[in-house]
């Protein structure tokens, strides 16, 4: 069969040749090849100023009709430089295309395919391996921070392995998941962005990121799909955008060995200094004086009984350490034109700024294999990776204890931890922080990801493909609480928590792809189906009442064991298609559609259809533009509109179910209602529109992309708030609320100077997000009347208006709007919006001969929680807790103008409620949290000269990387990103490394 087709094709080509040589106009035939002599399929062949057009077939061959017997052909293809070549009567032209270096023609990975920035109809942001390589981070998501317009990455904790929050183009869902869909080499990442630890550790609510099992060095590129055109084909899973991670592949040619290693250290960035003992004592005494309260042994033992000369700088003790980072990556790649391979292996290890032995290590290995048969009909792409992450951080974030009284007695005379000083037991908010360092957490996680793509060309232009993938993320963790970590007041004996979780996902996607030249354009049709299954099971064991610390990791030694297990299955199936038409590389239309079914919805609600259209017009190719605007080297207008859905609601929510209580009653199993149920749940639908213009001027030295988008999500799946008199605090239901995320995204790439020895280029991205609640039926009488506001951002809240500290009384005052003498909900009139006003990143790159300097700044303008937020929980002067130094600016005597009220010592102090109650409800706790962070500086030197060759080296480089080096901000508080004094802020890291390729 194969042979026959070949013969027919040859015959046809021969016939064509005969036709061509006989007359003018003529037929030109030829082959388009790459530098290695491999045919390039789908290349465009055209004759300038004529309507002649052809595209190459899978053998790189083309036939085109020309009006004149000599002239010029223009040949272009994705990823290659556009080339002009003269033709004449000579048959069978051989045209070799060089790979393109311009960023417009770089390959962009899209859903089930590839394109270039030039021809893309959708909105796709890209982060390359080179950009990732500059950053000494263990979580690949952190490396994306600030680099893509519309992509917001927030790191709430600096703890090793902690999760990051990812949002593409704002919060689309009132309260269901806003996580994008993550796809690694075509396989949906089983865990998404949900934390993978079963047992709580220092990362707290952020949890351990599943991406801490992904090696950043394995990544070739990360594509962020944003608009309907790019995401609709992912149907219900694409509403929040899609992040495609593509791993590196082997390069044919000589076998290459490469080694890359770096080593460095990290420290805490911004935090707040706390009072020393002297100032602390002064604060407390002043508080009693202010309240006219007597200090007694019962209410002021810290002032009357404790050693007044002791001093511990808890900030230094708990988070003042230096963490070390080590990273090694080795790879070998090679192959021939038919088969290429890449084997790589990596290690990344970090210690912590906390005291004691704490570390987080990751090892990984990967194999990538690409094969195409000699006749180019069959291709096989296999990528398989395995990684293992071991997190041995403490069980709690020690930053939470920096407000312990500075003269706390930490040790008993014998050296054991102290829990009591002069009758005061360290309990509740007061605790010996060193105990927490004795809680030992160990998490072991592994991630196996395999993807296999097979493709066979059945006929010219028709390919049958199958993508198969398997992903498994497994974890096993434990937190051991020996007697030295337990507050004796709790009465607990040593205990341990054990967790085990397994998440398995497989996907099968059969596809057919059809490429054909139709008229003067090319048509591309893709049809496919998806069957995806995710299953999970987990086990949690609380083992209590150990008699001693010796056998803590043995469950059998526990006096009491509580075991809980859970499992779920999620199944998803779909049928999808895409039709693309490209007319002369100038007019492009892209239609996508998908019909989806998800197991998360009840009978009759499982299926839904989604679709999108994307169009682009490369107007710079029009002759009238080219002649009037010669400086315009590239101009594209594109737009898209379409829908996608969201089913991130958890599983089995449409069933009326009961579940086991944590404990039995007198040995008998107990059951409780799981939740209020709703059998009518259905998809949340997001409709996305985008309009963008892309311009390149002066031979694309400046490339500007401006995009305006408007996403509207409706049929919101919300946990509709209910008063607890209904038994639950919410019910999951679809709701007619309409949320609009819109915004402007700008990207500007500039090559200011490009000479042989020196170059300077920059990339800036800028996002101006807007979020608006457009519709909310019955808002006024609903349970959301005081939570959401029509026409405002979802991040808006209503607060009391803070009027400052009364200079006469020294107490916080607020506006009593209705003048009833009380500060209550009716006085909350100030609207505070914490949605960032704008954010973005600026990259500047300089090269001088072998030297390369990259500086990346991340910036964000926003309102955020300031240091006063925590003062409503810990009132300065009240109880034995320390305060940041800034409280010294408090009001002291009548006439003082300040922003911090007088210290208060007692619960009936007139200053107590204003601080404890009203302050947190007011706008005083918000202030500007904008920042410019020097996110990354990289200085690299690549050696050149004959000695490199003599040593048989292909490349030798040295580099210095700095992450989060410093932050420019006027923020009143610790770190403007994490906005919490009691959570470890992101760390600054400085590393030095070497790269060798031979």
């Amino acid at each position, binding site marked *: 069969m194969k042979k026959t087709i070949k013969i027919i094709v040859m015959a046809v080509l021969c016939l064509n040749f005969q036709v061509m040589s006989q007359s003018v106009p003529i037929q030109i035939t030829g082959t388009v090849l790459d530098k290695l002599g491999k045919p390039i399929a789908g290349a465009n062949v055209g004759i300038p100023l004529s309507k002649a057009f052809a595209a190459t077939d899978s053998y790189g061959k083309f036939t085109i009709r020309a009006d004149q017997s000599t002239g010029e052909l223009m040949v272009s293809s994705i990823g290659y430089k556009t080339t002009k070549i003269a033709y004449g009567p000579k048959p069978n032209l051989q045209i070799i295309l060089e790979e393109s270096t311009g960023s417009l023609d770089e390959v962009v990975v899209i859903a089930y395919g590839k394109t270039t920035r030039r021809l893309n109809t959708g909105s796709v942001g890209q982060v390359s391996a080179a950009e990732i390589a500059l950053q000494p981070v263990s979580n690949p998501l952190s490396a994306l921070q600030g680099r893509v317009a519309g992509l917001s990455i927030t790191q709430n904790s600096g703890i090793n392995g902690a999760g990051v929050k990812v949002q593409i183009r704002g919060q689309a869902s009132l309260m269901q998941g806003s996580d994008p869909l993550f796809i690694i080499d075509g396989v949906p990442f089983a865990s998404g962005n949900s934390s993978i630890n079963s047992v709580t550790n220092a990362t707290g609510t952020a949890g351990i990121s599943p991406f801490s099992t992904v090696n950043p060095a394995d990544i070739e590129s990360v594509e962020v799909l944003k608009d309907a055109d790019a995401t609709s084909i992912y149907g219900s899973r694409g509403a929040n955008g899609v992040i495609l991670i593509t791993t590196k592949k082997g390069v044919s040619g000589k076998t290459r060995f490469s080694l890359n290693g770096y080593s460095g250290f990290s420290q805490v960035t911004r935090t707040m200094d706390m009072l020393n003992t002297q100032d602390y004592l002064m604060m407390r005494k002043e508080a009693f004086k202010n309240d006219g309260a007597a200090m007694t042994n019962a209410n002021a033992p810290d002032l009357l009984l404790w050693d007044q000369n002791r001093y511990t700088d808890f900030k230094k003790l708990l988070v003042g350490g230096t963490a070390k980072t080590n990273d090694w990556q080795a790879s070998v790649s090679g192959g021939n034109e038919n088969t290429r391979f890449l084997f790589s292996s990596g290690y990344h290890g970090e210690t912590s700024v906390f005291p004691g032995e704490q570390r987080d290590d990751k090892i990984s290995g990967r194999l990538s294999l690409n094969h195409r048969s000699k006749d180019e009909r069959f291709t096989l792409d296999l990528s398989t990776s395995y990684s293992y992450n071991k997190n041995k951080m403490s069980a709690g974030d020690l930053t939470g204890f920096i407000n312990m009284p500075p003269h706390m007695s930490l040790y008993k005379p014998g050296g054991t931890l102290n829990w009591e000083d002069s009758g005061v037991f360290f309990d509740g908010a007061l605790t010996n922080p060193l105990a927490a360092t004795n809680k030992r957490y160990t998490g072991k996680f592994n991630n196996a990801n395999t993807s296999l793509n097979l493709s066979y060309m059945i006929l010219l232009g028709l390919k049958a493909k199958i993508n198969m993938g398997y992903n498994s993320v497994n974890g096993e963790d434990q937190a051991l609480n020996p007697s030295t970590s337990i507050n004796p007041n709790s009465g607990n004996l040593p205990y341990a928590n054990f967790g085990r979780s397994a998440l398995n996902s497989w996907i099968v996607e059969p596809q057919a792809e059809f490429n054909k030249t139709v008229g003067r354009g090319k048509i591309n049709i893709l049809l496919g189906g998806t069957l995806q299954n995710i299953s999970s099971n987990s086990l949690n064991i609380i083992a209590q009442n150990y008699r001693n610390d010796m056998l803590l990791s043995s469950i059998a030694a526990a006096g009491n064991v509580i075991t809980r297990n859970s499992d779920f299955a999620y199944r998803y199936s*779909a049928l999808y298609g895409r039709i693309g038409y490209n007319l002369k590389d100038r007019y492009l239309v892209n239609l996508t559609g998908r019909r989806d079914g998800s197991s998360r919805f009840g009978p009759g609600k499982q299926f839904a259809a989604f679709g999108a259209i994307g169009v682009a017009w490369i107007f710079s190719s029009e002759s009238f533009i080219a002649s009037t605007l010669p400086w315009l080297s590239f101009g594209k207008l594109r737009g898209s509109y379409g829908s996608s859905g969201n089913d991130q609601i958890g599983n089995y929510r449409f069933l009326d179910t009961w*579940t*086991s209580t944590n404990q039995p009653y007198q040995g008998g199993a107990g059951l409780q209602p799981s939740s209020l149920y709703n059998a009518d749940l259905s998809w949340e639908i997001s409709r996305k529109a985008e309009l963008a213009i892309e311009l390149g001027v002066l031979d694309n030295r400046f490339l500007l992309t401006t995009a305006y988008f408007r996403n509207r999500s409706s049929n919101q799946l919300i946990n509709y708030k209910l008063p607890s008199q209904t038994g639950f605090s919410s019910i999951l239901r679809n709701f007619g609320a309409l949320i609009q995320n819109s915004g402007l995204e700008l990207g500007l790439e500039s090559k200011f100077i490009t000479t042989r020895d020196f170059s300077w280029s920059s990339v800036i991205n800028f996002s101006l997000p807007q979020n608006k609640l457009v519709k909310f039926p019955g808002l006024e009488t609903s349970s959301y009347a005081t939570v959401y506001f029509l026409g405002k951002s979802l991040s808006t809240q209503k607060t009391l208006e803070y009027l400052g500290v009364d200079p006469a009384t020294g107490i916080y005052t607020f506006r009593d709007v209705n003048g009833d003498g009380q500060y209550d909900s009716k006085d909350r009139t100030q609207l505070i919006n914490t949605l960032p006003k704008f954010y973005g990143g600026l990259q500047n790159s300089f090269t001088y001969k072998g030297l390369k300097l990259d500086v990346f700044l991340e910036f964000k303008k926003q309102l955020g929680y300031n240091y006063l937020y925590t003062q409503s929980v810990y009132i300065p002067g*009240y109880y034995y807790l320390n305060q940041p130094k800034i409280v010294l600016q408090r009001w002291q005597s009548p006439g003082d103008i300040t922003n911090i009220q007088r210290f208060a010592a007692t619960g009936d102090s007139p200053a107590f409620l204003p601080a404890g109650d009203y302050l947190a409800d007011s706008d005083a706790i918000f202030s500007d949290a904008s920042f410019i962070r020097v996110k990354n500086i990289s200085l690299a030197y690549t050696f050149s000269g004959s000695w490199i060759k003599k040593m048989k080296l292909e490349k030798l480089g040295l580099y210095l990387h700095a992450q989060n080096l410093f932050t420019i901000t006027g923020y009143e508080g610790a770190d403007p990103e994490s906005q919490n004094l009691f959570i470890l802020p992101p760390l600054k890291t400085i590393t030095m490394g070497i790269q060798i390729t031979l």
Partner: protein
Amino acid sequence: MKFKNRKKLQLHSIVVSALAIVLLLSSSVFFGACKKLVDVPKSSNLVLSKDVFATNEKATSAVLGLYNKMVALNLSMSNGGLTIYSALSADELYNPAPHTNYDPFSLNNIPSNNGIIYNNFWNTGYKNIYHANAILEGLNNSTTLNNVVKNQLIGETLVIRALYLFYLTNLYGDVPLVMTTNFERNALMARTAKEVVTEQLITDLKTAIELLPSAYASALRARVNSFTARSLLARVYLYKRDWNNAEIESTGVISSGIYSLESELNKTFTSSSKETIWQVVRENLNTAEAAVLIPVSATVLPGLALRENLLNSFELGDQRKSRWTAVNIVNNQRYYYPYKYKIRSGSTVGECLIVFRLAEQYLIRAEARAEQGDLRGAVLDLNILRTRSRAPVTAEISNPLPDLSLDLVKSSVLDAVYKERSNELFCEWGHRWFDLKRTAMANAVLSKLKPTWKAYAQLYPIPFEETQINIFLTQNSGYAN
């Protein structure tokens, strides 16, 4: 001819491609449309509601789950919360050192957005009322259950629901009377008059008494029996000032022959106490309130200490002071704390959460008798308790805790009842707080003791968050909302 050939080929290839696409499409349609492909096995931890009430065993589990939930959250209403926080609100406990949780209660200065009012009381109450309503609906709709089991379970559930409604209405005043699981209706429900709630309690408890056997369904008197229902009903009548019925119900319990006062006070609160009418068992845990009330060592300042007025009210030779309180001396100062439960922690369970005990029934009957003019009968009941608590005669105390005279006038008998209640039931389930309120003594007693006392503080504020979600839920007067 040649061109024709080429066209033929094109046609051929298009036909083949089209066929392939159609094939793929149809297989995909099969993929997409087949519902089986999105059917998933049910999670092993979930039981469908209809299956829960299909078998005796599972239905019983639903009720056991409710018992379990009563003590799931430490210091929630039914797990030490009433004991601790109501005692702070009243004149029993104070916190020697400042404490953000205790201060608003001891100062009677609870803001409406207080977290304890919301989570520990209101939320716990209504969550468990929902659980109870779900059980009752499931049981009533079930046709496959054994009638004996079904009646027992309905009875137990009615009593537990009544217990929560009783406490909610006595803490907050009028409260929504939620009797179904219909969340659409319940979400908009306004507050129901306290009198209506009380009538419902009486109806439910009467039904429960009918349905429940007098025998206990499990060891340790850990599940509700008919006398538990009668005990609560006696209390409901007492609070309603329905003295006749209060006397009838308490007499029913006292004369049941099942319960007797422990002569040794130290045994009153043990898990095997003969006085216990109903107690809730915690798996591998002793009581939550003992863990809070008993200090970790003899040298530390107790977090909560007994107020002078209570300590001074114990008469000479009243062993309740020596047996049921204990003292820590810290920096030369004495801090007394409640010591009814004596096991602070540990893995061996020796004490459970006692919800009803016999002594209260004597006190209910004494008060009911006194109010009805049976002063002699009232004093006799009080003397039973006094006899039990009386210390042996010593050189210092020649007449320890004497019997009360049978000739006291009504007001004196009532005063004696109130005092006896205070000494017997201190720091138990908020008895003192409710007594102060229902006997209209709160203002007089508490304003003397606390400069921050306000009359409106007799009712706790309705949780602010709830008033924001349900616009029909009005705030109690005096509170900022």
